């Protein structure tokens, strides 16, 4: 089957979720939409179950930290319609100090570890997740290391400053 047309996909979503869908981007043939954390599960459910869309495959869940933004945490879902050979990217922007979003595990059990990983690295709380623990880092860790405020190396080291490299 042919790829889903971006306009048709958008208008279908807009018809269903009036005013809750924002188009962000469609570069490289991948439509990116933004929605709110209140609507996210319903949007994903609609994408998954609408017979003309059938985005049944959850490719990935991750997060991005934008410390300069007011809503500084973005949770990003990549969902794939295998039948229509179309991908869509759904973003939700959250308050970075207290990021909370409903868990997608009720739609896809496979979201479990993806959400655990996102929690582990960004501290995003997935409400309703059955087992929200750290997954790759040690349990005793008390920071969320992929957030931008945590530098890669020890900030007290003086021998690796950009200054010495003319930067």
């Amino acid at each position, binding site marked *: 089957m042919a790829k889903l047309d971006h306009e048709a996909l958008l208008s279908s979503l807009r018809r269903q979720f009036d005013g809750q869908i924002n188009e962000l981007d469609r570069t490289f043939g991948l439509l990116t939409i933004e929605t709110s954390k209140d609507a996210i599960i319903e949007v994903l459910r609609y994408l998954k179950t609408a017979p003309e869309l059938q985005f049944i495959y959850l*490719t990935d869940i*991750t997060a991005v930290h934008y410390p300069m933004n007011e809503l500084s945490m973005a949770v990003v879902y990549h969902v794939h319609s295998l039948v229509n050979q179309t991908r869509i990217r759904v973003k939700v922007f959250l308050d970075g100090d207290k990021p909370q979003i409903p868990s997608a595990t009720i739609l896809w059990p496979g979201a479990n570890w993806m959400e655990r990983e996102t929690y582990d690295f960004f501290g995003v709380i997935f409400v309703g997740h059955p087992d929200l623990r750290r997954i790759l880092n040690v349990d005793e860790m008390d920071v969320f290391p992929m957030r931008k405020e945590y530098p*890669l190396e020890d900030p007290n080291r003086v021998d690796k400053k950009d200054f010495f490299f003319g930067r």
Partner: protein
Amino acid sequence: MSELKPKLTANHLVFDDNDPQDELVTLNLGPTHPATHGVFQNVLQIDGERIVSGVSTIGYIHRAFEKIAEHRPYYQITPLTDRLNYCSSPINNMGWHMTVEKLLGIEIPKRVQYMRVIVMELARIADHIICNGILGVDTGAFSGFLYVMQEREFIYEIFEEICGARLTTNIGRIGGFERDFNEVAFEKIKAFVKRYPPILTEFEELFNRNRIFIDRTSGVAAVDSETALSYSWSGPLLRATGIDYDVRVHEPYSSYEDFDFDIPVGENGDVYDRYMVRNEEMRQSIRIITQALEKLENEPKGVFHADVPEFYLPPKEMVYNNMEALIYHFKIVMGEIDPPKKEVYHAVEGANGELGFYLISDGGRSPYRLHFRRPSFINYQMYAPMSSGMLLSDAIINMSSLNVIAGELDA
């Protein structure tokens, strides 16, 4: 066999309510155990030989690649991708190059694309060889493993001829290859394409109709397609359940649309089907390589990278004698290229499934954010839930046939 069908339960141990008389044994399978082929820990609660419930602990070799990648120029991230699925590094390398090229809008010449296809398919064969060979070892047949392991050595020799490295290859560059394939490399590829199919047949003859092998694998860890999809399985595991999802066909990259090949699918999603799917994929890979070699004949000789001086390192003699080349050399080495402020998701069909790169560029010298969609990580999460109800020995070969690579699991 039907009573061995795994029941999907919650992914946690049930210590209190299901064992009032304290009859169950808690077994630590791993982190280092000869039967697990890597650093995997599973705490299992067992009743005799049958697993009651289990929980996976992962992250033993987590190396924070995503964080490191945020501090490195694009070309220095390639060696990090080597260490994801280290059994088929070239696929990861190529996937990363293609992601950056998509971001930068670089058009790759057809000859380079075909060369990349050859390298990726060789890597896929090398990966499947390990998986199926070790599956044989775990079911009690060592000789098949030795037969095909020798072939993997020939593949590594080809990689060595192309890029100088064998396991963590760092093969190719953003924009093409670092050098052309030499004559020896082409000869070795041609020789391999000839010699491998009969050896694979020999390997299959050892296993496909082998009574012991079928008893050990058929019906073990069977997963239906609906469950596999809901757990976001991909690659040979998903195809063994009967879903014909292959990124090479769904979203062709590197000119896979020019090739004629089949996507093998299984029916039951059990260990035997996964084994058969991988075997057939190796045959299809040979088919693809043969076609790629033919297509290379018709392409202009000596083209091994795109003509993008601002992203591709100039040859050294140019750097010494040519002002432009010197400037570009300096800018590229210092990572001062100008990527557009865009987001890109690019997926390739890794040996274990859909390997995705989600790259966000803010126009700086290194990615603002890079996320790897690692098939092993996503495939492995079903391991503990599906193990409950299984025999311990079945769980071991189930792990072999999932082909979880620790580097890819933990990133």
